[in-house]
């Protein structure tokens, strides 16, 4: 049976969608933030592959077809941005200051925690791009001399955690201005967070999309400075 899966091109795509569908059913039944359809799907698939002894590469041969759509989907973030443009324009000062603060907070906290946990330089620079969108993150990690697979892991953990906990964290820190909520989610948890920001509201979604671009570019500029610090 495992050989059949290895031959199939649809297998990976089908179980991804099936697992996500099960995730949405579970979320509908129990409305806790931790029952996140994406997280449930990821855990189900990892369990399934491990139990049947199927390699990640075999699964990814089919799942790749879905991942392919990430780039055109990222391009579509221009739509909420376009629709909310007039409102965003008025808040450009807050958005720019917030993004700058977020990027510096991200890089500084990674520096301090890497020192604290005694990570190697290679692991440290792999973490620097963890709050930005995957495609920029991988390229930046490579440029800084990091380990791209480690960067992807950090980006995914950040995104999924941000997606699950953003509502609770915004409540905890009393962030309630829609623009500030959107920016906080986008700056911390990139595109995976933006999925949630779009669910919260139109303005939140648009600003979260914007911060993927702004924080991504700011991180590219600042990370090379931080790479030399540890």
């Amino acid at each position, binding site marked *: 049976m495992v050989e059949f899966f290895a031959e199939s091109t649809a297998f990976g795509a089908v179980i*991804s*969608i099936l697992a*996500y569908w099960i995730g949405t059913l579970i979320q509908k039944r129990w409305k806790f933030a931790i029952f996140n359809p994406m997280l449930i*799907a990821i855990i189900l698939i990892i369990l399934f592959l*491990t139990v049947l002894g199927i390699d990640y*590469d075999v*699964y*990814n041969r089919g*799942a790749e077809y*879905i991942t392919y*759509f*990430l780039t*055109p*989907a*990222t391009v*579509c*973030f*221009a*739509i909420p*941005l376009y*629709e909310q443009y007039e409102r965003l324009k008025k*808040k450009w000062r807050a958005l720019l200051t*917030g993004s700058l603060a*977020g990027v510096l907070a*991200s890089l500084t*906290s*990674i520096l301090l*925690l890497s020192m604290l*946990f005694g*990570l190697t330089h290679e*692991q440290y620079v792999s*973490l620097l791009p963890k709050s930005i969108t995957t*495609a*920029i993150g991988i*390229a*930046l990690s490579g440029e800084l001399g990091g*380990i791209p*697979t*480690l960067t992807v*892991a*950090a980006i995914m*953990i*950040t*995104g999924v955690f941000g997606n699950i*906990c953003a509502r609770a*964290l915004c409540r905890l*820190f009393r*962030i309630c*201005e829609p623009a*500030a909520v959107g*920016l*906080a989610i986008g*700056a*911390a*948890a990139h*595109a*995976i967070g933006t999925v949630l920001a*779009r669910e919260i509201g139109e303005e939140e979604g648009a600003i979260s999309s914007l911060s993927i*671009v702004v924080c991504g*570019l700011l991180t590219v500029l600042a990370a090379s400075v931080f790479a030399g610090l540890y």
Partner: protein
Amino acid sequence: MEYVFQFSIILLVTFVGEILHALIPLPIPAGIYGLVLMFVCLKTGMIPLEKIRKSANFLLDAMPVMFIGPCVGFMAIYREQGIAILYIALISILTTVVVMAITGRTAQFVIRHGRGGKNG
């Protein structure tokens, strides 16, 4: 067919983004060039929103599913990196909390401060 035509326009912009990515020697991915380009096209009216709206919304709504594949890749990385992945996970989670708090509070402060200044 409507969805197919709309999707082709989005793919075309994505393709131009890929060309820019190949030509410009910066670590900026095709998707980001495409996003900026699409925004400019919408803003100048070169692409009317109605010509892409349905397919674009479909892609945005389906986005969580697109992240599942790369996330499952975590299992392969775990085998490769071993225990270090736990530190990486812990740092990722802690910094996410810090970034969210600082970004959100800073932006909120500037918004409220500016508003108060204008009204007062």
